[in-house]
């Protein structure tokens, strides 16, 4: 142990200290761009593939700049964000209460265990034909698919959080005269807020992935539609730009949830 501690790691790069995370992040982004550029060069030099050369960083990023400048980015993102937001909100509205119930009531947990694990393993996209038949609007069908993808992580994270609650917290509350409403809003929900947010973060990851194929359905708006449309019109620069937009929005949504988790986390690592 002491031998490791003796290696002057910090001194090798003086002044880097706090900036280290940022420097490494920039390094990672640079690496990704480098690989992308190499890939673009290889496609451009390949006789079979050169038609796809506008996937390269140059054409893609300049098209992206146009899309941003014209506001088209907003037009294609807003419908997608609406669908994901609605799907996630529904998933939380169902997943959190059901998760609390199966976390609290052993019989419910035992009864639902097999059906839930079974349903969870079915790809949300398998419901596509049923969703299309069941809903009058394309939007409804897509929101349903996102809901199906997002409900399980939220439900299971909530139930797991509940089972980690210290029973003494509940006893203390009961002892001081808490009613079931207090129990839920003063003890249980604050205690598991981080578990719920972690579930929502996982759900967002799945939902954002499911969104694009779901938007290949009949809709004429959204990021998935933009991908499909660009493919059909052989506009590969737009296709590449849309891929970048999907990645960037997904990254920042996830980042926002990570910050929320940090804010709500009451566990002190130093305690």
């Amino acid at each position: 142990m002491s031998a490791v501690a003796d290696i002057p790691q910090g001194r090798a790069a003086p002044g880097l200290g706090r900036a280290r995370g940022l420097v490494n992040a920039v390094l990672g982004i640079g690496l990704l761009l480098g690989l992308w550029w190499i890939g673009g060069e290889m496609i451009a030099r390949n006789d079979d593939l050169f038609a796809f050369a506008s996937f390269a960083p140059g054409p893609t990023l300049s098209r992206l700049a146009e899309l941003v400048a014209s506001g088209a980015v907003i037009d294609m993102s807003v419908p997608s964000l609406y669908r994901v937001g609605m799907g996630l909100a529904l998933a939380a509205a169902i997943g959190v209460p059901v998760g609390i119930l199966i976390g609290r009531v052993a019989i419910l947990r035992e009864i639902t265990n097999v059906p839930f694990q079974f349903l969870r393993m079915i790809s949300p996209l398998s419901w596509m034909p049923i969703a299309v038949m069941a809903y009058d609007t394309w939007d409804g069908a897509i929101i349903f698919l996102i809901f199906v993808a997002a409900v399980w992580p939220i439900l299971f994270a909530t139930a797991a959080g509940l089972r980690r609650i210290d029973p003494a917290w509940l006893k203390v509350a009961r002892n001081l005269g808490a009613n079931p409403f207090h129990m839920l809003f003063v003890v249980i929900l604050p205690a598991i807020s981080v578990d719920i947010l972690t579930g929502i973060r996982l759900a967002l990851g799945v939902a954002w992935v499911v969104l694009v194929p779901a938007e290949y359905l009949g809709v004429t708006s959204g990021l998935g539609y933009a991908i499909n449309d660009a493919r059909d019109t052989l506009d590969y620069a737009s296709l590449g730009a849309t891929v970048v937009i999907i990645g960037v929005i997904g990254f920042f949504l996830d980042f926002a949830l990570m910050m929320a988790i940090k804010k709500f986390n009451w566990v002190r690592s130093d305690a």
Partner: protein
Amino acid sequence: MMVEPITRDNAGRTAMPHVAGRPSGAHVAVRGLSHVYRRSDGPVLSDIGFTAEPGEIVALLGRSGCGKSTLLHMVSGLSMPTAGEVVINGNAVRGPSPRWVMMFQAPSLYPWMTVAQNAALGLRFARRMHEARARIPEVLDLVDLGGFADRNAQELSGGQQQRVALARSLAPKPEVLLLDEPFSALDAFTRRNLQQDVRKIARGLGLTLLIVTHDVGEAVRMADRVLVLDAHPGRVASDTRITLTDADRNGGNDAFQREHTRLMQTYSDIAQVPGGNLT
């Protein structure tokens, strides 16, 4: 339903003349209390009966497993006995209430709340948050945590956390405080301090205090009266008074030693433990 004949006023004044002013504590009567968890195990408690006068500090002394926690849970209304009843100021206990509050071995503070928010829980549950602004600083001062209101509960030491739990119990102005070995997880020094302070606070407020313990020293230091419990099934086997002054209780002098030896003798006869080696 039989009404408790002893009223708070005359019982408090005559039985406890040394309590300054009118005691805020309630009269507690436990009558014919028996409890069975599993029929195959037989009763855990069998026909327990005793009373505590308003403002009296009563220790329930017994070996671990003799049913002390079970008994206290029933007094607090957290669970119901198989037979018998608990009557506080003439009313049968049917559930928990901020009027009779229990303190546990672990403080179990909510780590997402500040000290003040934890202390105010009882007021919040009783929809009396309007009292908190005046009451919370008052109880935090009472437990010597005046400057800690906005600290996170997790930053405190074990003894300080138990003091917050005490403040939390006292905030709704209970008439009875039930302590289930609340100091046994603390180091000896912190434990002594809390034993002294809890007695002083209960005395000052005139609270009725029931303390469950397996520690003879704790019973002698804190209680006006000690009920020694027998095990399997639990029942009251001895009821003795501790007539020490507060100075004697804290000093560990000859008078203290005599009471300690006497109670230890009673306890070891009843609990069948080898005498002298217990603390």
